[in-house]
C-alpha cells in the first residue's frame, strides 16, 4: 500500500531532523579539530529550521498519518516544540563547556540531534512498535552521551548505569507491550482503545504495569528512578540537562498518550496507582534532595520530585485544568530546569566541581548569574511570579477539580520541603561570604541560552495567556 503524499507533509520536521543528523555527521568529518563549534551552530540553525514546520502545524486539525500509526495533533506539536527548543538551548550551553574535555565535540551535537528526533517521534507515536523504537532511539543516543567523557570514571559509570537500567526497563516495557498485543491483537493505540474494553482485568493490569516500567524509567518515576542521581552527576552537565528535560518531556508525552488513549477505556483503574506513584515520587525525591551537597545530584532528586508533580497532572488529567496543567507545568519546568543546569554548567566549568560550596557568594562574584539562578530556584520551588508557580497553580487546581484533594495536600507538604533545599542554593549564593572575587562568566552561547531560559521562566509566570491557549488547544486535540 503506498503512503499518501500528504502524510509526508506532516512528517517534514522528522524527515528534516534525520537528514540534519546525517548532514552534521558529514560536516563534522571535514572540520578541523578547533572548529568543531561550527557543528553546534549548524545544528542550532538546523533545529530552528525544523521548528518552523512544527509551528506551522499548530492550528491544523488533528489527524493520524501512516495508516493511523503516527499522530499529527496539537499534543504532539506541543511536545515537539519542547523537544526542539530544549535541544537548541542545550546545544548552545554545550558549545564551550565541552571543549577541552572531549575530542569528539562535533559528534555530541549529532547525537543530540538524533535524540531530538527520537523525542519528536515519541511524542507522536500512536503505535506500540513505533513507540518502542522511538524510545530506543532516544535511549541509545543518551547512553552514549551520558558516558561521553571517556577519561572520567564517573562519566563512564553514568553511561554504563544508564545503559543497564535502560535496557532492563525497556525489555520489561516491551514485554508488557507484547502482552497488550496478545490481549487485543493490535499494536495501534486507537484500535487497542476499542478492544481493550473486553480485555481481562488482571492480564491488562500486568501489561500496563510492565509498560509503566519503561515509561517510568524515562520520566524518573519512583521506583524506576535509581539511575537518575548517578547519571546526572556523572554525565556532562549539558547531557544531564537534556535528560532532565527533553527526554523526560518525551517520556510524559508517551505515557499520557498510552494511558489516556489506549488504556483509559479499559477495565483497569490506572488513576489511583498513578496518584500513589506521584505522591511517592515527589516525597522520596524531595526528602533525598535535602541532604545533597552536589548541585547536579540535588537537581537529579529534584527532577524526580518534579516527575511526581507531573504525574499528579497525569492522574488528574480530566477537566479543563488537568491535561493543560501538565503541559504548562512541563513548559515552565523546561525553561527553569534547563536554566538551572546551564548555571551549573557555567559554575562547574569555571570551578571544575559541582559542589555546592562553589556557589558561595556567587551574588557578589556574578550578580547576574546568581540572580537568574535564584529565579530558577524560586520557579522550581513554585514561588510567583515565575512559570514554576503558574504550573503548580494549574496542577493543584487539576488535582482539586479531579477530587484528589489528598494528593494536593501531599503536594503542598512536599512544596514546603522542596523550598528548603531550593532556598539553600539562594542562601549559599547570597548569604554566605565570598571565597574569592573572580567572576563566573561563561561563554557567549551559554549566556544566550541562560537568558532565553530566564526569559521563558518569567514569561510563563507573568504573561501565561498565550501558553494557556496553546496548552488548552493541545490537550483538547488529544481526544480524537
Amino acid at each position, binding site marked *: 500500500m503506498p503512503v499518501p503524499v500528504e502524510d509526508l507533509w506532516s512528517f517534514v520536521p522528522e524527515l528534516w531532523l534525520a537528514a540534519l543528523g546525517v548532514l552534521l555527521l558529514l560536516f563534522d568529518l571535514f572540520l578541523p579539530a578547533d572548529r568543531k563549534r561550527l557543528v553546534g551552530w549548524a545544528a542550532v540553525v538546523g533545529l530552528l529550521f525544523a521548528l518552523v514546520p512544527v509551528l506551522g502545524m499548530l492550528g491544523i486539525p488533528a489527524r493520524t498519518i501512516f495508516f493511523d500509526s503516527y499522530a499529527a495533533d496539537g499534543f504532539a506539536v506541543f511536545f515537539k516544540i519542547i523537544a526542539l527548543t530544549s535541544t537548541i538551548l542545550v546545544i548552545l550551553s554545550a558549545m564551550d563547556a565541552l571543549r577541552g574535555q572531549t575530542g569528539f565535540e562535533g559528534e555530541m551535537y549529532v547525537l543530540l540531534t538524533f535524540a531530538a528526533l527520537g523525542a519528536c517521534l515519541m511524542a507522536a507515536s500512536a503505535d506500540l512498535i513505533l513507540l518502542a523504537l522511538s524510545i530506543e532511539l532516544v535511549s541509545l543516543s543518551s547512553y552514549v552521551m551520558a558516558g561521553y567523557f571517556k577519561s572520567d570514571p564517573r562519566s563512564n559509570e553514568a553511561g554504563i548505569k544508564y545503559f543497564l537500567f535502560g535496557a532492563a526497563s525497556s525489555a520489561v516495557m516491551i514485554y508488557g507491550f507484547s502482552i497488550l498485543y496478545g490481549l487485543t491483537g493490535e499494536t495501534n493505540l486507537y484500535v487497542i482503545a476499542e478492544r481493550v474494553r473486553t480485555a481481562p482485568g488482571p492480564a491488562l493490569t500486568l501489561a500496563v504495569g510492565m509498560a509503566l516500567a519503561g515509561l517510568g524509567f524515562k520520566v524518573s518515576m519512583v521506583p524506576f528512578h535509581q539511575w537518575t542521581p548517578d547519571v546526572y552527576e556523572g554525565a556532562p552537565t549539558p547531557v544531564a540537562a537534556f535528560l532532565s528535560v527533553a527526554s523526560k518531556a518525551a517520556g510524559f508525552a508517551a505515557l499520557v498518550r498510552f494511558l489516556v488513549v489506549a488504556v483509559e477505556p479499559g477495565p483497569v483503574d490506572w488513576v489511583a496507582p498513578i496518584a500513589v506513584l506521584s505522591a511517592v515520587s515527589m516525597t522520596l525525591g524531595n526528602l533525598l534532595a535535602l541532604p545533597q551537597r552536589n548541585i547536579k545530584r540535588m537537581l537529579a532528586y529534584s527532577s524526580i520530585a518534579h516527575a511526581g508533580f507531573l504525574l499528579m497532572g497525569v492522574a488528574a488529567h480530566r477537566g479543563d485544568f488537568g491535561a493543560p496543567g501538565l503541559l504548562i507545568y512541563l513548559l515552565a519546568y523546561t525553561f527553569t530546569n534547563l536554566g538551572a543546569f546551564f548555571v551549573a554548567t557555567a559554575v562547574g566549568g569555571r570551578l571544575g566541581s559541582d559542589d555546592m560550596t562553589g556557589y558561595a557568594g556567587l551574588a557578589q562574584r556574578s550578580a547576574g548569574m546568581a540572580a537568574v539562578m535564584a529565579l530558577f530556584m524560586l520557579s522550581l520551588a513554585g514561588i510567583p511570579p515565575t512559570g514554576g508557580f503558574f504550573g503548580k*497553580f494549574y496542577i493543584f487546581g487539576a488535582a482539586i*477539580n479531579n477530587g484528589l484533594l489528598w494528593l494536593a495536600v501531599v503536594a503542598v507538604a512536599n512544596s*514546603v520541603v522542596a523550598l528548603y533545599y531550593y532556598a539553600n542554593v539562594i542562601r549559599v549564593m547570597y548569604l554566605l561570604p565570598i571565597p574569592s572575587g573572580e567572576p563566573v562568566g561563561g561563554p557567549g552561547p551559554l549566556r544566550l541560552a541562560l537568558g532565553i531560559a530566564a526569559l521563558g521562566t518569567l514569561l510563563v509566570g507573568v504573561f501565561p495567556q498565550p501558553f494557556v491557549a496553546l496548552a488548552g488547544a493541545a490537550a483538547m486535540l488529544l481526544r480524537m
Partner: protein
Amino acid sequence: MERYLLTITVFLPLLGALAILLIPKGREELMRWVAVAAAALAFLASLWILGPYEIGKAGMQLQERYLWIPGIGINYHLGVDGLGLPLLLMTTLLSLLSVIYSWRVDLRVKEYLFLFLLLETGTLGVFVALDFFLFFVFWEITLVPMYLLIGIWGGPRREYAAIKFFLYTLVGSLAMLLAIMLLYFSSEPRTFGIMELIGQQPLAKAPTLAALAFWGFFLSFAIKVPMWPFHTWLPDAHVEAPTAGSVILAAVLLKMGTYGFVRISLPMLPETFKLFAMPVAILALLGIVYGALVAMAQTDLKKLVAYSSVNHMGYVMLGVAAAAGAVGIPEKAHAATIALNGAVFEMVAHGIITGALFLIVGVIYDYRAHTRGVNEFGGLGARLPVYTGVTMMAMLASLGLPGLMGFVAEFLIFVGSFGVFPELTAVALTGVIFSAAMFLWTIQRIFLGPPNPRWAHLPDLDRREVISLAPLAALMLIFGVYPRALLDVINVAMTSLVTVLR
C-alpha cells in the same frame, strides 16, 4: 491619571527598584536618593488617592480591571475601600520612613534597596488586589525580599530566622492556594474575583468543603498575623531582622494576615467563620495574655516589642472573631461593627506604634549602644531627652493610654466584642494590665533611675532619625485625639461588611 492611580501607587516602588539595578556600583548615594524618591512618590500617589476617593461611599473605588489570563478567568483587578485605604497609606508612609532610616546601611546597598522596594510593591499589591490570583502573587512576592533582608542584613542568627520565616509562611500560603482552588471550582461561573466570589457564596451549601476552605485560609492568615500557637517564627524573625525590616514586618506584613481575615474569611465564608468564631476568639485571647506575659519576661528590647505584637494582634483577632460570632444575629450587628472598626483601627495603630518602636530600638542598638538589654540601661532620660520623649510616647500609646492612638483601638475592640463574647473580653482585659505593667516597667528600667556611666557619651537623635520618627509620633497623637478622621473611612466599609453578614 486617576484611572491608573492604584497601579501607579503599587508599581512605583518596583520601578524605583529596577532603576536602582541600573545604577553602577560605587554610586551608593545616588541609589539611596532614587530609593527615597521612589518611596516618596509612592507615598504621594497614595495621598493623591484621597482626592478622588469618596469617603462616604461604600464599596470598591478607583477600580481597575483588565483581562490578564482570560483562558481561566483571571483578571488584573484592583480597588480600594475603607479597609484597604488606611493600610495602603500606612504602608507607603512606613516604607518611606524606613528607607530614610536605612540611609546608613552600607552593606550591599544596591541589593538592600532593590529588595526593600520590591517588598513594598508586594505589600501594597496585597491591600488592593481584588482577584485571588493577583492577591496570591502579591502575597508571595513579599516572601523572598523579606527572606533575604533578614538573611543578609540580619543579626547573628539570621539564617535560621530567615528560613524559618520563609518556610512557615509558605505552609500557610499553599494552604490558602488550595482554599482558593476549592472556591474557584465551586463557583458558577468560575471566577477568581474576590468580589464575585463574595457575591456568589459558592460554598454556602457545602459545609465540609467550606470548613476545609476556611481552615486553609485560616492557616495562612493565622501564621501571618501571627496567632498563638503559630507565632513562633515571629520573635526570631523580628529579633534578627535589620531595623527597617522589623518595621515593615511588624507594621505591614502582619497586617496582611488580619486584612485577609476581614477581607476574605469573614465575607467569603461567614457561616463557617461563625461556626468556628469561638475557637478563634480563644486563640486570640491566648495570644493576648501569652504575648503580654512573655513580653514582660524579656530582657531583649526587640524581643519585648515582638511579643507585644503578639499581644496586640490578639486584640485585632478578638475583634474579628467577635464580628464573626455575630454573623446572622441582627441585634448584635451594632456590636460587630464596633468590634470591626476597632480591629481595623488597631491594625493601623499597631502599624504606626510598633513601627515607631522598632525604629526606636534600632536607634539605640544599631548606631549607639549596640545592645538591646533592657537591664543594661538606666537613667537615659536625662541623657537623651528627645529620644526618651518619643519612646515614652510610643510605649504609652502601645499600652493604651487615653489620648493616644492605641487606646481608641483597644476601647472599640473591647466595647464591640463585649457585646458578643462578654466572658472572653473580660479575660482579655487582663492583657491590657499586663502589657501596661510591661511597658511601664520597661520605661522605668531604661530611662529612669540612676544614670549608667557606660552610656554617658551617647548622642541624642540625629536629623534623619527625627525625620523618620516625628511623623509617627504626630499620627499617634492626632488619631488619639481625633480618631474620627480615620474612623469615618473605616466605618463605611465595616458597616457595609456587617450589613452583608447580617
